[in-house]
């Protein structure tokens, strides 16, 4: 094969292209099972159902590319909703309450980042402990109360759409955030450093990358965005309770990994994560339209999570075996950090 044809074939094997094919197939399937599938209203519904998760998946993608993970986001959603509800019920104007909540989110992220970068704990362990703390504080703040009767403009932001278009307002927030983070990751030195940290942290540090500082800011970003997701969820549900957001972390991580981000860090793209979100939104919507119970959906999400890690691993192993069969250089066949072409940026 000549170079150009080879590259073209290789790009077909890219994770994002595969995702796009799956997405198109799902849309075709959805159109055949239900006449309402391709309506603007249904599009808005499909997007809205997972918008908080989608928003949180963006900073999560950066964190996982940098080789860490943040399992505390779902609890931050609960804490954010609780404080918002508590403050509003206590007579604080909603605008001020939102600002306070975002600051709390940043502080929560700062705590995660501090424990990871300064105390040197693995993020996995930290974010196993801090979710219990955040959820616990949410329960302390709001106990078992539910707060509702938020101002109309606030709830309108939650489930209203841009006038004349079937685009929910939170989706606009999502697109803006996706754009900013895509530029940051794929177009600036910060992005290059995030990849460098994820590929080889020690090498990155010796090349002058301020590893701790970048990771700290990523956790702050993740906490703040999780708090924002809590605000949006409160607006969309028009009520605040301490237990909202339970189980969302799983879906967030699933979207990120399904989007082709390598769980071992160093590899992945924002467009991939956006495609994964759309795929999951359409899949969930199609399942709902065909009256599949939500229990099946939880099983599907769990399986998707595992499969989206297994496939790249198997592909990598197959490639290693292929390269060896070609009599070329001996490549490590182990999955951890092995060379692979599936989702290289």
């Amino acid at each position, binding site marked *: 094969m000549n170079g150009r044809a080879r590259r073209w074939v290789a790009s077909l094997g890219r994770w994002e292209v595969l995702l796009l094919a799956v997405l198109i197939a799902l849309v075709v399937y959805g159109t055949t099972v239900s006449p309402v599938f391709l309506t603007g209203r249904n599009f808005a519904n499909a997007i809205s159902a997972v918008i908080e998760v989608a928003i949180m998946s963006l900073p999560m993608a950066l964190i996982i590319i940098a080789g860490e*993970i943040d399992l505390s986001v779902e609890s931050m959603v609960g804490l954010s909703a609780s404080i918002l509800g508590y403050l509003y019920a206590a007579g604080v104007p909603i605008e001020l309450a939102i600002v306070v909540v975002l600051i709390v989110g940043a502080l929560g992220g700062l705590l995660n980042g501090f*424990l990871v970068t300064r*105390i*040197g*704990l*693995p993020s*996995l*362990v*930290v974010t*196993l*402990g*801090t*979710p*219990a*703390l*955040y*959820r*616990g*504080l949410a*329960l*302390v703040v709001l*106990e078992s109360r539910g707060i509702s009767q938020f101002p109309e403009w606030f709830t309108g932001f939650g489930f209203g759409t841009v006038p004349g278009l079937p685009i929910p307002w939170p989706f606009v927030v999502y697109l803006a955030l996706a754009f900013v983070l895509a530029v940051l990751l794929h177009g600036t030195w910060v992005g290059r450093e995030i990849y460098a940290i994820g590929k080889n942290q020690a090498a990155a540090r010796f090349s002058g990358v301020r590893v701790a500082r970048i990771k700290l800011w990523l956790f702050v970003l993740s906490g703040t965005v999780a708090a924002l997701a809590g605000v949006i969820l409160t607006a969309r549900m028009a009520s605040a309770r301490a237990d909202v957001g339970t*189980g969302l*972390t*799983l879906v967030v*991580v*699933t979207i990120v*990994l399904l989007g082709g981000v390598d*769980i*071992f860090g160093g590899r992945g793209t924002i467009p991939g994560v956006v495609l994964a979100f759309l795929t999951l939104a359409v899949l969930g919507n199609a399942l709902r339209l065909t009256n599949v*119970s939500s*229990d*099946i*959906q*939880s*099983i599907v*999400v*769990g*399986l998707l*999570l*595992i499969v989206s*890690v*297994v496939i790249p*691993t*198997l592909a990598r192993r197959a490639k290693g075996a292929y390269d060896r069969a070609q009599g070329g250089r001996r490549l490590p066949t*182990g*999955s*951890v950090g092995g060379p692979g072409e599936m989702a290289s940026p």
Partner: protein
Amino acid sequence: MSDAAALAAPTTTSPVSRLLGAAARQRELSLLLVLGLMAILVAIRAPQVLSASNLTDVSVLAAIIAIAAVGEAMVVITRNVDLSVEAVIGLVAFTVAAALSNHLLSTQAAWAFGIGLGLVLGMINGIVVAVFRVPSIVATLGTLSVYRGIDFLLAGGKQVTLTELPPGYTNAARATLVGIPIFVLIAVAIVAVCALVLRQTRFGRSVYAVGSNPEAAEILGIRTALVTFVVFSVSGLLSGEAGVLWGILFGTINATAATGVTLQVVAAVVVGGVNIFGGSGTVVGAALGALFLGFISNALILVRLSQFWLQALYGVVILIAVALDAFLLRRFQRSATARRRR
């Protein structure tokens, strides 16, 4: 930075440092001391803590958590984590209760079925992690969702109530032998067997080897994938046993049974001194950790602190235990370096 600190820190001989070092090495002992101290403090404010009936209540629930924590400890020692324990406990508890209420199984067969189901679920985790090389956190987060989903699918909105179970089946929860609850005896037996296996057998040593340095273990001829598979299977089996006991203790079971238990189990393991980076820790420590946390939550209720604080407290306890471990480890390494320099 560590060099300078090592030179500037001749504190290795200070009594405080020596005490901290000893506490780090003897986590089981220090846990018992703290437990005793807390018991005295709480007993002053709420004497009913030490009543026989309250101690039974605490120890029976702690025994269930301890059984799951023993399996989790073995997984964590190999540098993995099993987040699916609560879903295994919930699924086993429900299916066993449902089978009994429909008279599909005798009570003995139900125990065997529950433990077997746990083993199968654990083996699935083990295959995903050891064969497909999916990081354990992701794999068990996925299976957590799958197992719980199956639980919901089977249960629908239904629940099995105490009255549907065979008469006398749930008596085991209150039964005692020479004054000690049967559940506690079961837990002690499991802890003893697992502690012996980990300490005395070739397999046990290989579990530690895999956790402290997987590559080196592989070079030494230890089949790391097999060891990983086995510890996940054992964790599933013990979670299955915990699930059976859970069903007996609570009697009324629906699809949400044991939600949040993973947090308690992992907390027990970490508080019990099992290093989250793998390679060190004991199952005795994990079991004591379970007892310690069970006692704290019971004491909180008895001194009338809001139940809402409980979860926040678990989070803080995990973070403190883990941060303390990291701190002590660094201190220990530093003093070891300093000693070598001298």
